[in-house]
């Protein structure tokens, strides 16, 4: 479902953010992407969803190559991204409008869009809150609304970037439940190793733009390995 081979990416200032990253995620898998700040997790996500231009042939997500213009246009209906800060994602005046934003961009009929909005809000536990405005929501509600906005697109692949950021313990618990209930292939980038342990079956450790190791969630218990890469074992 996600196939990345020897992906290299440098920002215009010359900083090499990704240096030969190779990962493979199969359909239905839930994989944690961990690593310290600057490891390249967010850059990898932005390459996967086609926001940053990766070299042709280095990425295939849901059968599409983000480097090819025609295939990149199809990505939003296959790959959903939940960004670190939900305020970046909730740009509409009401939650309902925001959740409808993606399906409307897919040019779906109005009835289908309304159905998807209602389903997505139900799924994240925000039934009937269409008319609420984003700046009235708590951190947890904003996160759930942002996830609803992505779920309404019915993506096969879900990329979650630091999903537990800005959440209190209750919000975090609710999020873990929600992630575990979500269908499809999930790639979760996080510093929150406990969240990764509770939601993922496999872990990929990145540092300095490279994949250091990958394996079962047991590696999260390896204190020496985690400490070496600026993380804390759980």
């Amino acid at each position: 479902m996600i196939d990345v081979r020897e992906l290299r990416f440098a920002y215009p200032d010359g900083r090499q953010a990704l240096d030969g990253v190779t990962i493979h995620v199969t359909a239905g898998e839930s994989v944690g992407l961990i690593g310290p700040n600057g490891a390249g997790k967010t850059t990898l996500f932005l390459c996967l969803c086609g926001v940053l231009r990766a070299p042709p042939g280095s990425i295939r997500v849901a059968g599409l190559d983000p480097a090819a213009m025609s295939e990149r246009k199809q990505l939003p209906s296959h790959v959903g991204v939940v960004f670190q800060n939900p305020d970046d994602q909730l740009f509409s005046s009401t939650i309902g409008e925001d959740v409808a934003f993606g399906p409307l961009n897919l040019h779906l009929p109005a009835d289908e869009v309304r159905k998807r909005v209602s389903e997505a809000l139900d799924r994240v536990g925000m039934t009937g809150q269409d008319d609420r405005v984003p700046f009235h929501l708590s951190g947890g509600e904003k996160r759930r609304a942002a996830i609803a906005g992505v779920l309404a697109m019915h993506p096969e692949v879900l990329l979650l970037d630091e999903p537990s950021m800005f959440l209190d313990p209750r919000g975090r618990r609710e999020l873990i439940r929600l992630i575990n209930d979500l269908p499809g292939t999930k790639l979760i980038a996080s510093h929150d190793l406990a969240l990764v342990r509770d939601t993922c079956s496999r872990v990929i450790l990145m540092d300095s733009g490279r994949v250091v190791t990958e394996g079962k969630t047991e590696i999260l218990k390896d204190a020496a390995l985690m400490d070496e890469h600026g993380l804390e074992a759980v």
Partner: protein
Amino acid sequence: MSLNPEHLAPRDSILARRDARWRLAAFALAIFGTALLRTPGPSAAALCLALLFVWIGRVPGRWYRDRITILLLALIPFLVVAPFTVDRGERLWEWRFLHLTDVGLLFAVTLAMKTVALVTLALTLLSSAPLHVTLAAARKLGVPRLLVQLTLLTYRYVFLLLDELGRLRIALRVRGFRNAMTAHAYRTVGQVTGTLLVRGSDRAEHVAQAMRCRGFDGHFHTLIAFRTRPADVLMFVWIVGVAGGLVAWDLCR
């Protein structure tokens, strides 16, 4: 007090039930007509008409009063100076180079009535529907797409920037910063402004990325359905007719 009109849930009223496009068009023309008025009589009539809309539109009293109070406070300097700037008419009071004329006084009163009428009409329009509905109506009426999108996104993010400014101010205060007319204070204010601009730019970039990831193609699509009914047309004709009548009355004087 918050300037955020979205804190106000629009109340059901005769105005709120009208199609947003017809309502926006009617109020835009009424505001334009009111801005053209120059004489006290039509301006007073325009103010009465605007207050009638406040009543018809069931605009919450406190919400309206708070905003009009701020407007009046901002108007005071102009209202104080205006009567002294007109030479025509009978001189009511004179002292050295200063003179107050009846025409000048009427000018100030007209200015106050016109301004309050204009803002009252705008507030009534804002309170009659959520902003995104009014902006969707504006788009349907042919307002440029970019302008509508900018307004919508500015409205959404200006409060976040204000929050960030609030946090920066707290951070400055807890480190002993106090406003003063010193080079250090000016430099600090400049740095805070720069920080806000950089954060605003970062946020804009992130928002653009989030929009692209959800298939944004440069067009804001909406589920809001507009439907014209006879009552919408009647309201439009009535408001525009009255506004036109006031302009004609003003021109005849």
